[in-house]
Every structure is written in structure tokens, then in C-alpha cells.
């Protein structure tokens, strides 16, 4: 819900970049609203077409929101981190709603299969979200890396800057997090404790 429509996202971003911390607090609901609008648009369009389409929600949102370059990296990194978190929330919320709507056949939220291997074709976002919460208990930083990389689309280098840890460590944590998540989700599917 946009609370202050008189102040567009670009204006708040500019103020935030200039050091006004308060504008960031006002920015988050607007970003959330914008991401939601884009997600809704894409999900609806795909459903109407009955086709698998690659969507670029975050890309598009970033483009909309970050038109004015350059921005200083700290703000930009923080902004990406917020977007990644919001994107996770929105996509999982959509997946839950879909599941509730269909129960017993119909749609399943899946990853686009255009380039990916069979294993990653049918990813249950709700199961991933649950597993990520468990990973956050074991290591919050690894969970954040997955959020930034998978939901935020950040590269290893960008994630390393956001988290102030070396790219080598990000890579190490990212790989082991993915292996662990895959194992966790597969076992949950088999109801294997």
C-alpha cells in the first residue's frame, strides 16, 4: 500500500542516497507495492497464456526503481537486499495462494524450464522457503546468500559486497547451502526425518 503517492520512488531513492535515512523507511512499502504489481502482472499473464514464460520480475523492478545511476554502492547493495527479501516474500505468498486455490489439481508454481536441468524444473517454492528458514537457524548468513542470489539475482561478487565477506567464502557457502537445501527438500518430500 503506497502511503505517500506524492513522493515517487525515484524521489525517495534520491533522498535516501543523499543520506536521509527516513526516506528509506518510506521507500520499502513502495518497493513492495511495485514488486507486487509486477509479480501479479506476470503471474496473470502466464496463466492466461497457459505457457511457460521466463519472467524478469526483479530485473524489471530494478530497472523501474534504479533508473537514476549512479548510486553509491552501500545504498544500492542494501536496496538489492531489501528487494531480494521482498521478492521471496511475494513469490512464496503467490505460491501459497495458488496452492490454496487449486488443491487437487490445476496449477503448480514451477521454475521456467527453458534452460534448466530436470532437477530444478519443479521447484516447490513453499518447500524452499521452509528449508531456508531451517538453514537460517543453522547459519543465517548462508540463508541470506541464497536469498540474495536466488531471489535477488545478485552475482557472487555483488553478494560478497553486500555481506562484506570474500567472494570465495560466498561461493563456498552458496554451494554447500544449495546441496543442503536440495537434500532437505528431497527428504521432506519423502517424509524422511
Amino acid at each position: 500500500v503506497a502511503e505517500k503517492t506524492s513522493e515517487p520512488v525515484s524521489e525517495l531513492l534520491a533522498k535516501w542516497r543523499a543520506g536521509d535515512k527516513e526516506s528509506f523507511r518510506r521507500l520499502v512499502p513502495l518497493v513492495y507495492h511495485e514488486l507486487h504489481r509486477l509479480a501479479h502482472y506476470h503471474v496473470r499473464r502466464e496463466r492466461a497464456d497457459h505457457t511457460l514464460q521466463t519472467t524478469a520480475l526483479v530485473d524489471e523492478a530494478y530497472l523501474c526503481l534504479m533508473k537514476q545511476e549512479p548510486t553509491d554502492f552501500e545504498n544500492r547493495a542494501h536496496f538489492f537486499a531489501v528487494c531480494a527479501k521482498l521478492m521471496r516474500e511475494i513469490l512464496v505468498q503467490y505460491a501459497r495462494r495458488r496452492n490454496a486455490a487449486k488443491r487437487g489439481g490445476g496449477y503448480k508454481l514451477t521454475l521456467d524450464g527453458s534452460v534448466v536441468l530436470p532437477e530444478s524444473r519443479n521447484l516447490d517454492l513453499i518447500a524452499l522457503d521452509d528449508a531456508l528458514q531451517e538453514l537460517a537457524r543453522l547459519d543465517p548468513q548462508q540463508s541470506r546468500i541464497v536469498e540474495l542470489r536466488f531471489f535477488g539475482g545478485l552475482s557472487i561478487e555483488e553478494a560478497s559486497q553486500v555481506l562484506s565477506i570474500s567472494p570465495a567464502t560466498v561461493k563456498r557457502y552458496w554451494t554447500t547451502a544449495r546441496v543442503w537445501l536440495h537434500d532437505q527438500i528431497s527428504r521432506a518430500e519423502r517424509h524422511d526425518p
Partner: protein
Amino acid sequence: MTPEEWQQVREVVADALELKPEDRPAFLDRACSADHSLRRDVERLLSTSDEVRFSFLQSSAFRVGLTP
């Protein structure tokens, strides 16, 4: 699993993944020594196929679609 146990498992898995598959058993013998529970957890994670390891979560979430 506790955070401390995971940290231990993670480090052994990460190191093992940097080795050639044929060099892993000897490494695990050293890294896990008599800790059978550690070895079991590590081996389970290492048994994840290369295909999964290279592809899982590698295309980001915004490539999301709906299929009937």
C-alpha cells in the same frame, strides 16, 4: 542438527568438493576420523549428483512460470 554440527559438516563437504571424487574417501577418513555421525551427514550431502550441484537454484527465482 545444531549450528555447530552444521558448521563442521559444511567445512568438510566444501573441502571435499574441491577434491577429485577418487581422492575424497581418504580425505574423509582423515577429516571425520571416528565421528560416524559427521561422516554419514557429509557422505549424504556429497552423494548429491553433479547435475543437481551445478543446476539447483542456479537460475534465479524470477524465472518463475506457471504450468498446469
